[in-house]
């Protein structure tokens, strides 16, 4: 027995020597950045992306993506899944160019419904609702849509540069995030959720907690025990986020605006200018820069990265902007920052997939599926062995972003005309589209029901002046936070100090404390001021 073991061990070791040519993928890949080779690769990429059929499929992709993004509820996941068999007949690079186009195209389109009718199509466009819809109500839908499109374009272009130049080192950063680091990042994200509050801080914290509680519904990851599902099989995986968000924002908005007869008239009659004014541009360029940086940084993290980026960029602007008091009432920074962040994150989320073969979200998983069907195993070797795939896709992202802005800016006028449609036609059709969209997510009538129930709850929230955004953050981050905490503790054999001894994890926890301090301090001060009747 022992001899056998030794024999195998030496045989494997012998095999290992030949099997591992490069000690670290990062070291091998870094050579690509910032040298003549880089320019050569870029030329190779553009050569591929400018082939007419690749341009054609890129256009198809971004067109489909925009359309999907605009239709509430119908996500890019469903669309890409349906198109998967179509890609069998295409070359791998053409397939990737088209699928990627759908993905980032949907990010562009998703802002449209958020701004016009307060319905977030994806988790990442929830933050855009907050100020985008308020701008639309004030007749500034045009500048809001333009800010979203311009911010997305800029962010998309810059993040693509980041992907091209720094993909391997950035992927290394993503690898540094294990369960304890994710847990602390989520804690930081939740601390940030309190910054989102426009009104009462107490209500915001209550909404975060409610979101966390709702997030506990479903199957316990470790034991397989069902929690709070009351025998309803559909609840075994928890409450679907999209249905909840569409109910809380969309349906609640429709119902509560039916109550206000007077202001409805105002909404439609004031359309105003289509493009942002000079002042708007001056106000939005910095938020776009910061949002882009936020999105590129957090986008590489799997899971909630893109969503944290859009919320984080919004919260940051609210704190640093001179117009912080206008947030929630239609500040253009509140649209530009999260839209830049979510588009940058969408591009950056390609980094772990392209360099390591690790999908950071469902769309990336689908794209990896498309590659595997073509016989390409995802992994670190793809970037070196198939440079045309990597660089062709990168180049196509620039072209696709350019196509998107050319497509989207002229369409703003058309979208705004939509607002002049009388509400008795507009609202029922929105409701129908929402119902179709949410049903198509997993062909489940239960999701439609969830949307309706949370629509009613949303109306109650409106009456109580409780904002749903912190709740959504709690619902999305809560389960991930729990899973990662439990993973971290299981791997450490129950030792909680890993959360403080790992440097990245500790840094996030300290940052969360500081953030809470900043948020709470003015609140406490205000309370004192109120006591002394200074306000």
């Amino acid at each position, binding site marked *: 027995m022992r001899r*056998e073991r030794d024999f195998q*061990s030496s045989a494997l070791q012998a095999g290992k020597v030949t099997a591992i040519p490069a000690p670290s993928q990062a070291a091998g890949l870094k050579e690509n950045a910032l040298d003549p080779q880089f320019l050569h690769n870029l030329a190779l990429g553009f050569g591929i992306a400018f082939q007419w059929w690749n341009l054609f499929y890129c256009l198809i992709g971004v067109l489909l993506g925009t359309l999907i993004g605009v239709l509430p509820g119908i996500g890019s996941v469903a669309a890409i899944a349906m198109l998967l068999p179509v890609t069998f007949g295409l070359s791998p690079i053409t397939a990737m160019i088209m699928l990627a186009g759908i993905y980032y195209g949907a990010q562009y389109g998703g802002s449209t419904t958020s701004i016009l009718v307060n319905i977030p199509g994806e988790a990442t466009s929830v933050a855009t609702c907050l100020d985008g819809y308020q701008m639309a109500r004030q007749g500034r839908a045009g500048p809001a849509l333009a800010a979203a499109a311009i911010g997305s374009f800029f962010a998309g272009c810059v993040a693509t540069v980041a992907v091209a130049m720094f993909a391997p080192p950035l992927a290394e950063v993503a690898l540094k995030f294990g369960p304890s680091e994710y847990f602390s990042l989520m804690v930081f994200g939740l601390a940030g959720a309190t910054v989102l509050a426009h009104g009462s801080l107490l209500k915001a914290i209550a909404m975060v907690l409610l979101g966390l509680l709702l997030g506990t519904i479903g199957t316990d990851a470790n034991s397989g025990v069902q929690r709070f599902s009351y025998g309803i099989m559909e609840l*075994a995986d928890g409450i679907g986020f999209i249905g909840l968000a569409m109910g809380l924002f969309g349906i609640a908005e429709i119902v509560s605006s039916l109550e206000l007869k007077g202001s409805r008239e105002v909404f439609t009659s004031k359309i105003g200018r289509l493009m942002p004014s000079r002042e708007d541009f001056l106000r939005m360029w910095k938020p776009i820069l910061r949002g882009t940086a936020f999105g590129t940084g957090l986008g590489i993290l799997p899971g909630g990265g893109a969503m944290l980026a859009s919320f984080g960029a919004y919260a940051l602007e609210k704190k640093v902007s001179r117009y912080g008091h206008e947030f929630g009432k239609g500040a253009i920074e509140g649209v530009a920052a999260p839209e830049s962040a979510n588009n940058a994150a969408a591009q950056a989320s390609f980094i772990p997939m392209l360099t390591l*073969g*690790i999908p950071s979200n469902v769309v990336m998983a*689908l794209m990896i599926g498309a590659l595997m*069907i073509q016989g390409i195993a995802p*992994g*670190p070797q*793809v970037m070196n062995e198939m440079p045309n795939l990597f660089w062709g896709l990168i180049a196509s992202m620039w072209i696709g972003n350019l196509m998107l802005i050319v497509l989207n800016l002229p369409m703003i006028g058309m979208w705004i005309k939509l607002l002049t449609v009388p509400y008795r036609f507009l609202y029922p059709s929105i409701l129908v589209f929402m119902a179709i969209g949410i049903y198509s997510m997993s062909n489940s009538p239960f999701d439609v029901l969830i949307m309706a129930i949370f629509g009613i709850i949303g109306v109650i929230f409106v009456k109580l002046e409780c904002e749903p955004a912190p709740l959504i953050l709690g619902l999305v981050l809560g389960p991930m936070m729990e899973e990662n905490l439990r993973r971290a503790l299981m791997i450490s054999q129950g030792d909680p100090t890993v959360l403080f001894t790992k440097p990245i994890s500790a840094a996030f926890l300290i940052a969360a404390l500081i953030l809470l301090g900043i948020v709470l301090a003015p609140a406490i001060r205000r309370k004192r001021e109120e006591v002394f009747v200074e306000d």
Partner: protein
Amino acid sequence: MRRMFRSVIILVALVVCSTAAFAQQSFPSKPVRLLIPYAAGGAVDILGRTLGDELSKRWGQPVIIENRTGAGGTIASQVLVKSDPDGYTLIIIASGHAINPYLYSHLPYDTFKDFRPISLLGSSPNIMLVPANSPHKTLAGLLAAARAKPGSLSYGMSGTGTSTHLAGELLKYMAKVDIVAVSYKGGAPIINDLLGGHLPLSFNNIPESIGHIKSGSLRPLGVTTAVRSAVLPDVPTIAESGVPGYDTAVWWGMLGPGGLPADLAAKISKDCAAALHAPAVKQRLDNLGATVAGSSPADFEKLIRDDYNKWGPIIKAARIKGS
């Protein structure tokens, strides 16, 4: 009058019989719904879409893929059980189907009575992985380390009751070692944590890990099937590395509702086998690391029963709780 009545009855009976026979000969005469219990983009989804694409070419009718995710595949199974047993609603299930009765104590259906097995479609070994810089060079060394310090090692698996979880629990059961199961949502985040050095050990599907094995960033310790994998012929099996008799794989198969006529099931089974062995389909599924099958309904039924019987004691030993 009475005679006429009788002849009408005979006529009606004839028509009914002939349409019934006709229905089986000319199946399908309308679109077929193929339920996929897992999310788009996963192995089962890709298998379903590849097979569905080929079947619709052969049948001349579209095969519509419907992803009904949730609750370990039981939601989609529930939809199938409630549908008409006419062959126009089918499902592709994974090996978890056979053990769901242990995991979900309130299953809304009977795993044996409410389904008509049609065909085993394919299977794939799982693989045991450690990071490249791991001190554990072989399975035997790893097991020795686990025995020396019980509970000190943890392995990543892609969800309670999944094939990777069962593979780990089977190892614990057969090799009598104490290794902690850490649950992840799917295989990709496990790879991330292995590469980042956050996790010492895992069981993964081959397709998602083969790139890292070939590049040397992850080291395979063994495949879970009794024979070595065709795509990784150098990697020993767990059985040959010190745990004799160890054998488990993830498999996928097609089921119809319980009332589906046996001859219709046989016809669909034959069509599936033919479609699976069409060169283009076989090539695509080989690329996914799957071994294409295509079995008779009876063989598939036996496999489900054998799996059910095999896993009972292991799941009990692992104390995986149901709802």
